[in-house]
């Protein structure tokens, strides 16, 4: 069944740029704060407080493109109908962690043999994911309750109308 919204390459690129722009902004802030002290151990901070190197920017652009692609796959109507939201979130999260971990190791974003950066990475990722998941879940629950109530009222009004 074809009920998908029509999406163009520009919608996809817009999403990629949103993720990329936000990540780049955060990274440049981190560079200003930690850049000088972390320049010797991380490729991301190789330029110290001057900002993110061009090569790292392109790596982050690749990650943004891959994550947006995954988002498109996990949120197609076919998948929405077959998988509950929580399972899609877990799949998306697992995919994101794997992709980022591969990039960390491949491009030496930080030394893979140090546990402290991994811990920071998982903590940051976990906190931001848990926060957004909680927010979305609460919003959905409220919305569902309101919609069910409104649907019940609409049906009752319809039955009354039919009865008359």
């Amino acid at each position, binding site marked *: *069944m*074809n*009920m*998908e*919204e*029509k999406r163009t390459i520009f919608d996809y690129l817009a999403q990629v740029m949103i993720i990329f722009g936000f990540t780049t902004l955060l990274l440049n802030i981190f560079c200003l704060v930690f850049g000088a002290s972390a320049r010797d151990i991380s490729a991301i901070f190789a330029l110290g407080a001057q900002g993110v190197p061009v090569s790292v920017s392109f790596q982050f652009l690749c990650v943004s493109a891959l994550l947006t692609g995954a988002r498109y796959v996990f*949120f197609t*109507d076919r998948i*929405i*109908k077959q998988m509950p*939201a929580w399972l*899609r*979130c877990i799949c998306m999260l697992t995919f994101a962690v794997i992709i980022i971990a591969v990039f960390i190791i491949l491009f030496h974003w930080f030394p893979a043999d140090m546990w402290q950066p991994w811990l920071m990475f998982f903590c940051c990722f976990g906190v931001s994911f848990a926060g957004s998941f909680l927010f*979305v879940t609460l*919003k*959905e629950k409220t*919305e*569902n309750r*309101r*919609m*069910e109530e*409104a*649907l019940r*009222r*609409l*049906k009752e009004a*319809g039955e009354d109308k*039919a009865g008359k």
Partner: protein
Amino acid sequence: MKVEIIVDDKAEDLHVVVTCKHLTPDIEKILGTLRMMDRQLTAKKNGEIYLLDIAEVIYIESIDRKCFVYTSKEVYESDFRLYELEGQLEEFGFLRVSKSFLIHLQKVQSLKADINRRIRITMSNGEQIIASRQYADELKKRLGVI
């Protein structure tokens, strides 16, 4: 085509007479529109024309410019385009929820908000329909939740 309208204050009911050499798809459409005033939808199945009670229709789906009318037991085909049915059936509680679906709100079993501002609609026959973002807001407005 000659159109004759007789306004008679003694007339008890609306009486429409169509005189033609033979039925054409255009005339069928005009008749279909008139029948909708009587809460009936003209649809075809295996070459036969059926008059469906609009209340029986669960949803209408457009596939490759053809419209299929789903009731709890059967699937029929309509000569109307989805946008035409949308305009004509709106007053009977139908709502467009995506590019290819028109649903009967009275036949909605449950609604569930999904990620990305979409809504998963379960119809009374168990079929699941996803309201796309652009139509989800319209659905919420119709329900009175925004």
